[in-house]
């Protein structure tokens, strides 16, 4: 086992040292220079001669019947080239990731605030904006279905989708549900086996991905009647699959190329403006660019499911968990998006990384007239972690135990079983992660002598000079799956080409992987260097000319596309060696490629790759599939449903101004097992970024939805952490290889987002003694709530 500790200050010394550029090193991003020069072309930077600007008219109502749409005045605005409604859609009118329930433009009714009804293409964004305002829509406004109680009583409150309208997995306003029972389940007899029982109800608000680069792209009509779309997305091929039928084009005529992506975090897994831009381009015959404004971005993508959860845990006097019973209700909003898969995750991961002999679970996603929810970093595991980790703290308090010890006592490890019956067949160092995070040095106490108010809660607002400030410490650990689960054949494709350019062997890597900032492009070059023993690697632009790479989500890209690059590079290597065997009659079986040469460990360098290749290129494509999984049984939740698990433990230290209800996170520490760090610099960056989004959910981030209407669609009102809100995030990584994964690696990006939130709330509870059953914790909760646990 190896570990690394990388903290802010220490990092500085490492930066100036040269690193090796293969796997395990930290070479710099290939796109870094372009990005710091402002020359990297993000999707909103695209420009085409003669291009038009597209814009959508969006519903001001969460639920209404559309009685009429009058586009005549909009069409008369000088500079307007097209105004389209659903009637202008040439193909099928619905699309969706898992259930095709979402109309590309509203048909006869709107189901959420901000749903697109009509489109305009014009010569200037302002012209488009003015024309959009001139479209007249007559609505019959209906009372929105927004609460769990309303959703579950369609007889009284109605259906979001009438039963005949959609092919839901559930019934009524239930989009999807998953039950799970293991051991004896949770019955009164089982309850009787526990000495202590704690119950709690928890709520998680609606978080937004809030990536900085707005949804945008450029659709260019092609001469063959097809369309070229330059787009910021997470998965080129699944976009195309959903788009082609709507555009009434065969898939091969819908060509997508990845344009620069300014962050994603799940928010680009669904279609946003892709179809709209293409429809406008088809109708006008001109290139059309759409760039969302920030408010439109809040309306135009799915969010993290808000959740209501009840948990009941029972344990013996000495702290051993006996049972856990849980119900998780996720509000999926108007359209299904990824809700079914999110439910599967919440149900199967909803008890945390603990061994619990008897388990019951019921997770559901509702259809409502609230904004649609789907994928966001942590995908269903985040909400549950707030529930089970709060329960662990309560149980510890009830038992008079140290909360970390209680967790360690029940922590799962390799060989244990998930509540789904799946045996964990790779390292699961849950107790070890907790031990390490606890052993990390604590930050020094607040120095009231040399106080800099900028360190205090309230910071620059100068709200305190140290009075009323109380410090707290909290711990948490979480579990997340890697890759797509429940029987999905989640694969990726890579093409690797080796040739001599300018007297040097050069490898080219071509995949359709969406680089959204995570650093996949860096890692692909590292893998090609390692496998092929070359220095020069170029990364081909990601597009649909090569097979699908799957989504940049579920922490899966290094595992899946990295794995495909490894397979393709190995194939190229074998082909090259084979060429040498044919030419030179080599008989050794242990040949490798190193330093631009074919090398035998026994007899040394045999030939340079340049000589062996000559002017021939070796160009091979390979697919990487992970081992198969199965869907969970609908009633019992049993099944080998997940490919890989990943774990992270956190410690948060907070200062709370208990008079004003202000919180300052002083430090947020993370220890995570990454299997193998292919690029330690990126790995640490991912963990720190993930922790910061968790911090946002803990104390500030929420889309406020009232009666179905979004109240804070701007960065003025939807707050994400600034550099002042974000503390130092010391990170320690463990590398316990997973025998089933390429290089033993483990997906990294999501685990910290799952685990870190509860540690911050625990620290605030530790400081204040309040119950805090809802996140984000806001000032009013800290100043008015009752002490807990209730």
């Amino acid at each position, binding site marked *: 086992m190896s570990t690394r500790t990388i903290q*802010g200050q220490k*990092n*500085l010394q490492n*930066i*100036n040292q040269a690193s090796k550029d293969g796997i395990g090193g930290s070479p*710099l*991003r290939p*796109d*870094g*220079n372009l*990005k*710091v*020069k*402002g020359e*990297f*072309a*993000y999707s*909103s*930077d695209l*420009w085409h001669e003669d291009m038009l600007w597209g814009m959508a008219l969006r519903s001001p109502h969460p639920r209404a019947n559309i009685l009429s749409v009058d586009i005549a005045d909009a069409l008369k605005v000088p500079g307007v080239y097209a105004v389209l409604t659903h009637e202008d859609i040439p193909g099928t009118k619905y699309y969706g990731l898992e259930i095709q329930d979402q109309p590309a433009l509203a048909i006869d009714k709107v189901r959420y605030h901000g749903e697109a009804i009509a489109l305009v293409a014009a010569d200037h964004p*302002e012209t488009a904006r003015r024309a959009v305002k001139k479209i007249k829509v007559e609505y019959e406004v209906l009372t929105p279905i927004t609460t769990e109680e309303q959703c579950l009583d369609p007889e009284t409150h109605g259906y979001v989708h009438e039963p005949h309208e959609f092919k839901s997995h559930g019934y009524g306003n239930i989009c999807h549900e998953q039950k799970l029972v293991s051991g004896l389940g949770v019955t009164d007899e089982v309850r009787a086996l526990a000495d202590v029982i704690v119950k709690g109800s928890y709520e998680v608000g609606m978080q937004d991905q*809030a*990536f*900085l*680069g*707005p949804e945008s792209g450029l659709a260019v009509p092609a001469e063959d009647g097809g369309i070229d779309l330059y787009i910021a997305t997470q998965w080129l091929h699944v976009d195309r699959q959903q788009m082609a039928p709507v555009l009434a084009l065969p898939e091969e005529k819908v060509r997508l190329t990845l344009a620069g*992506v*300014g*962050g*994603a*975090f799940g928010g680009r897994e669904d279609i946003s403006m892709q179809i709209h831009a293409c429809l406008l381009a088809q109708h006008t015959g001109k290139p059309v660019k759409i*760039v969302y*404004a*920030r408010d439109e971005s809040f309306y135009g993508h799915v969010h993290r499911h808000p959740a209501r959860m009840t948990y009941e845990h029972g344990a013996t006097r000495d702290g051993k968990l006996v049972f856990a019973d849980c119900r998780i209700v996720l509000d999926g909003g108007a359209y299904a998006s990824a809700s079914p898969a999110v439910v599967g995750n919440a149900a199967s991961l909803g008890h945390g990384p603990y061994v619990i002999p008897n388990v019951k679970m019921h997770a559901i996603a509702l259809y409502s007239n609230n904004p649609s929810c789907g994928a966001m970093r942590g995908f269903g595991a985040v909400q549950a972690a707030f529930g089970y980790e709060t329960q662990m703290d309560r149980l510890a308090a009830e038992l008079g135990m140290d909360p970390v010890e209680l967790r360690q006592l029940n922590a799962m490890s390799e060989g244990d079983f998930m509540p789904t019956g799946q045996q964990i067949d790779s390292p699961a160092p849950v107790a070890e992660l907790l031990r390490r995070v606890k052993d990390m040095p604590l930050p020094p106490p607040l120095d009231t002598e040399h106080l*800099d108010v*900028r*360190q205090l809660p309230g910071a*620059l607002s100068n709200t305190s000079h140290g009075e009323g400030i109380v410090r707290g410490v909290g711990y948490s650990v979480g579990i997340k799956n890697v890759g797509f689960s429940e029987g999905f054949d989640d694969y990726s494709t890579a093409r690797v080409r080796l040739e001599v350019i300018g007297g040097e062997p050069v490898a080219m890597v071509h995949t359709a992987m969406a680089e959204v*900032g*995570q*650093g996949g492009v860096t890692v692909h070059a590292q893998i090609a260097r390692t496998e092929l023993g070359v220095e020069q690697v170029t990364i081909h632009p990601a597009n649909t000319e090569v097979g699908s790479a799957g989504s940049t989500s579920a922490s899966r890209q290094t595992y899946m596309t990295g794995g495909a690059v490894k397979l393709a590079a190995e194939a190229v290597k074998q082909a090259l060696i084979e060429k040498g065997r044919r030419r030179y009659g080599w008989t050794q079986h242990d040949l490798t490629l190193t330093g631009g040469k074919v090398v035998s460990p026994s007899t040394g360098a045999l030939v340079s790759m340049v000589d062996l290749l000559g002017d021939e290129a070796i160009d091979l494509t390979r697919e990487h599939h992970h081992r198969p999984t199965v869907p969970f049984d609908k009633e019992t939740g049993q099944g080998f449903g997940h490919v890989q698990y990943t774990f992270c433990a956190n410690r948060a230290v907070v200062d709370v101004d208990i008079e004003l209800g202000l919180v300052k996170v002083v430090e947020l520490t993370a220890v995570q097992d990454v299997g193998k760090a292919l690029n330690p*610099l990126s790995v*640490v*960056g991912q*963990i*720190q*970024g*993930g922790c*910061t*989004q968790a911090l946002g959910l803990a104390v500030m981030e929420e889309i406020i939805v009232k009666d179905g209407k979004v109240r804070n669609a*701007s*960065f*003025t009102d939807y707050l*994400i*952490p*600034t*550099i*002042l809100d*974000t503390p*130092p995030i010391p990170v320690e990584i463990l590398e316990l290889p997973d025998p089933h994964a390429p290089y033993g690696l483990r997906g990294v990006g999501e685990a910290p987002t799952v685990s870190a939130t509860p540690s911050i709330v625990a620290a605030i509870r530790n400081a204040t003694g309040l119950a805090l059953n809802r996140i984000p914790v806001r000032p009013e909760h800290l100043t008015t709530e009752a002490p807990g646990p209730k």
Partner: protein
Amino acid sequence: MRVTFTANGKPVEADDVWEGESLLYVLRERVGLPGSKNACEQGECGSCTVYLDGVPVCSCLVAAGQVQDREVRTVEGLSDEQGELGLVQQAFVDAGAVQCGFCTPGLLVQTDALLAKDAQPSDNDIREALSGNLCRCTGYEKIMDAVRLASARTCERATSE
């Protein structure tokens, strides 16, 4: 209207500018300088930060007409003529402070301005100076590293000169 100003030392002009257009729009869509980014266009995120007569401003909040005859310096102007990275740019690359990079241009300009004022800012100074620049990817730790690195290199350079 026509707007004439200096961008990164070169005179530029834009025709048919609508009065409501921002400097950000003119830079990005009219004069071929898309380096400054459009994340909120409301002065909340700092991605569009540029120097206007030497002072960092959110270009999304500056009306195009206001820049008439003035000097703008954007992220594109932080590299030298040959395209060699400026010190702050290099530090961001070296420290791994760039992930998606959408926040980066604004942060670079703001950091450049900070170090011009104070070559050795404390951590609290850095946090205060960059508090108007949102980054959603990095968790800011590596941005802190980058600024500290740029500061160290600025001081090194000053002593060696």
